[in-house]
């Protein structure tokens, strides 16, 4: 396995070398606890402050509207539970294709007496703002709709949903883990009150993320303890992580636009290359309103994990739309919600491109996919799936 091609950037990304360089001094030299008032603490605090400013600038927000958390999952949990417990009761609207961090937090809130409506999506994985509007209740206390889905990349009409929310004064949370640092947007223009965003999807370190909280949004904290992050998130700050995250965001501000064009072209090269060679393949997700680097392809009648394994043996990292965990293969709930037929959904493979992806990589993947799918189809019973 000489050649290695990583096409799983929606799962995680390598940390940018400039980010690592920015973090390094905060391990051994500027190692203080930012809560400490002495010089060692102030050095660490300064690093955190700079990062917070960088993130805030990127979002069009004020620095004190940014809270650092340990990951996108925590940000999502904090957003939903923070809204919920600040109000005690009420109704949420979210979608069927949210990340598990939102879905399972919402489900847990249901066990605590809150109500939740899960709106559906169309065949392209798109939420209909009208359906969100119809789901509104007098006791609706929050709307949570993701910006782009990690599996299919479909970009949601969050501006329209934000308008609905703002007209009614309902807090609007957007899970932007897959779009932050990839798409340009402004929290004010879109009417976002809470926004989850993460570092390790944009060449920053793992273990650090953030939640934007619009000034004045009624929230309580969900992790209790010391008075860190303006009392909104207790716990000693992950200083090197925060510093690295800030740097990663700064780099994205610089690179994002060119990358967008480059990845869109490569993503289309992949899709065009594969559909020219492989019969019975479809593109899952929106044809145009889609993350630049994301291509979710469905191979009819093939089991996706075996494609992932076949590509893995060629040094290629992609992810399966369906997952076979302890003996039960589940088609992706996202594809099911989109109404993708089972024999296509079971053969879904996500390719997500990134900084290091080249045209040669794409061609190598295209050439590798064809024989794998052909061979797999050869051992399959006709019409089995």
């Amino acid at each position, binding site marked *: 396995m000489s050649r290695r091609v990583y096409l799983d950037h929606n799962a995680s990304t390598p940390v940018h070398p400039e980010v690592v360089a920015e973090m390094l001094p905060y391990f051994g030299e500027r190692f203080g606890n930012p809560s400490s008032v002495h010089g060692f603490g102030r050095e660490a605090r300064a690093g955190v402050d700079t990062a917070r400013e960088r993130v805030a600038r990127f979002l069009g927000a004020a620095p004190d509207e940014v809270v650092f958390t340990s990951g996108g999952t925590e940000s999502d949990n904090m957003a939903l539970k923070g809204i919920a417990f600040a109000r005690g009761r009420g109704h949420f609207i979210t979608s069927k294709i949210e990340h598990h961090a939102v879905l399972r937090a919402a489900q847990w809130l249901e066990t605590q007496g809150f109500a939740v409506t899960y709106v559906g999506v169309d065949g392209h994985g798109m939420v209909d703002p009208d359906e969100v509007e119809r789901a509104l209740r007098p006791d609706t206390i929050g709307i949570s709709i993701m910006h782009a889905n990690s599996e299919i990349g479909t970009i949601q009409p969050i501006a329209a949903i934000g308008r609905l929310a703002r007209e009614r004064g309902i807090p609007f949370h957007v899970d932007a883990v897959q779009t932050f640092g990839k798409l340009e947007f402004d929290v004010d223009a879109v009417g976002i009150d809470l926004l989850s965003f993460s570092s390790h999807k944009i060449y920053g370190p793992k273990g650090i993320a953030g939640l934007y909280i619009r000034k004045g949004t009624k929230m309580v904290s969900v992790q209790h303890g010391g008075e860190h992050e303006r009392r909104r998130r207790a716990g000693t700050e992950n200083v090197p992580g925060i510093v690295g995250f800030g740097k990663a965001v700064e780099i994205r501000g610089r690179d994002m636009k060119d990358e967008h064009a480059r990845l869109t072209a490569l993503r289309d090269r992949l899709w065009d290359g594969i559909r020219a060679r492989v019969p019975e393949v479809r593109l899952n997700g929106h044809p145009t309103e889609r993350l630049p680097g994301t291509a979710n392809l469905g191979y009819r*009648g093939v*089991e996706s*994990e*075996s494609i992932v*394994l*076949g590509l893995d*043996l060629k040094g290629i990292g992609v992810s399966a739309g369906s997952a*076979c*965990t*302890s*003996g*039960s*293969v589940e088609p992706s709930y996202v594809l099911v919600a989109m109404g993708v037929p089972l024999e296509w959904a*079971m053969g879904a493979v996500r390719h997500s491109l990134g900084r290091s992806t080249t045209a040669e990589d794409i061609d190598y993947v295209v050439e590798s996919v064809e024989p794998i799918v052909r*061979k*797999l189809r*050869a*051992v*399959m*019973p006709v019409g*089995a*799936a």
Partner: protein
Amino acid sequence: MRYSPTLLDHFLNPRNAGLMRDPDGTGVDEYEGCGDLARFFLRVRDGRVAEVRFQTYGCGPTIAAASAASERVAGRTVEELLSLKPQEVEDAVDGLPEDRKHAADVVAGALRAAALDALGRRQGEVG
């Protein structure tokens, strides 16, 4: 890699894959709740397995297990095949991770079903 070289070899180059015309026995097994499926076809000569073919739908280990098992059982008597254990199938691919043991189950199940079918047909002929 969580899979053995033997398993990967069978996954990449499955032996005896495909349909068989006029088999002497066929059997299918499907894993409950899981889409994984294996179908075996047997050609029997003098009470022994002369030729094996299979089709599977499933993740890599299921394909590999079917392929490895198809080599392993050639030449056996149909009666022997009736008591084929998943462990033997697993051994044929040099082990399976905990969450993929079902590959051996479904392959062994389909082979036993095929053997039973062959036996039934033979008795049918005799009777």
